[in-house]
């Protein structure tokens, strides 16, 4: 059974607020830096301005609400940075896609095996690590190629960066 694309629907849903700029060419995906380098910014969607006005009022109601808005702004910016970093690094594996996915699969298997015989205090960490490589392979297989996976992650990072100003900065 085909694994569904886990990122595309999120990118699509966010597009009513902020749309990736430029659009992804899935047939020949652009490098992640197209979206992560800062040379282009996401395009405001039809709902961006109304949402910004509404959220500006909402998070200005009290100091507590302003603090929450600041935290969301910082959180979005931080997550966008991490996703951009992951996108750029996944992009470096494009030329060795088959080997890389095999390596991720092997790492997932052996970390899962180690987890079975490791002291119980370490099993959570090994499970997380095994899950990370499993997730990487799921994303790649769901999107069809490493190039598309890297590009869609880069698009998402650009959107999150652009969405952060919806919430007041500290």
């Amino acid at each position, binding site marked *: 059974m085909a694994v569904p694309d886990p990122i595309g629907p999120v990118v699509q849903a966010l597009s009513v607020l902020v749309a990736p700029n430029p659009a992804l060419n899935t047939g020949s995906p652009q490098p992640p830096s197209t979206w992560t380098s800062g040379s282009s910014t996401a395009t405001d969607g039809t709902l961006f301005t109304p949402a910004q006005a509404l959220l500006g009022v909402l998070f200005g109601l009290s100091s507590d609400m302003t603090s929450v808005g600041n935290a969301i702004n910082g959180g979005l910016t931080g997550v966008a940075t991490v996703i951009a970093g*992951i996108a750029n690094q996944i992009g470096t594996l494009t030329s060795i896609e088959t080997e890389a996915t095999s390596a991720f699969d092997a790492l997932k298997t052996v970390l899962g095996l180690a987890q079975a015989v490791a002291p119980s*205090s370490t099993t959570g960490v090994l499970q997380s690590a095994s899950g990370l490589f499993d997730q990487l392979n799921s994303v790649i297989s769901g999107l069809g190629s490493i190039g598309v996976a890297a590009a869609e992650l880069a698009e998402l990072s650009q959107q999150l960066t652009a969405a952060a100003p919806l919430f007041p900065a500290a």
Partner: protein
Amino acid sequence: MADPIGDAIQALNILVVPTADGSGSPTMTALFGNIQTFTTAIFGISSDMQKVSADIKTALTDAATVVGKIGTSIGSAGSLTDVAGAMTALQSSLSLLQTIAPAGTAAVFNSASGLFQAIQSQLTALAGDAGKTIADAATELAQLAQLLTALEGLFP
């Protein structure tokens, strides 16, 4: 029956190849360097990711130590079936203790019981694999410990 340890070692050969007896240093492939560059960058993205990486490295060290000691220990035992039987007995006894022990110690017994159950499961799989002896099991465990140690290099 499948040999899960041998299969895992085989799968990892694209990254790192163990020595024949599991001692000394394994051979890293070129792909290991590519993946190392990738994971080093990924886990260097933020301080949280660096902590996760450090925790994984520690967990791999602990797992390699346990696997290596099991390999050394079973090498001097009688047969795979004997060892698996002993593990089953230990697991059953600890499970029983867990049900009647004070609540504070139940978690420890549960953890130990789970460990013996996991080891027994792996050894039973090896014993069921045609031609596998206790020497094969000891070698495979030594190789797995060697590979787990090598994989620490993927996590900064």
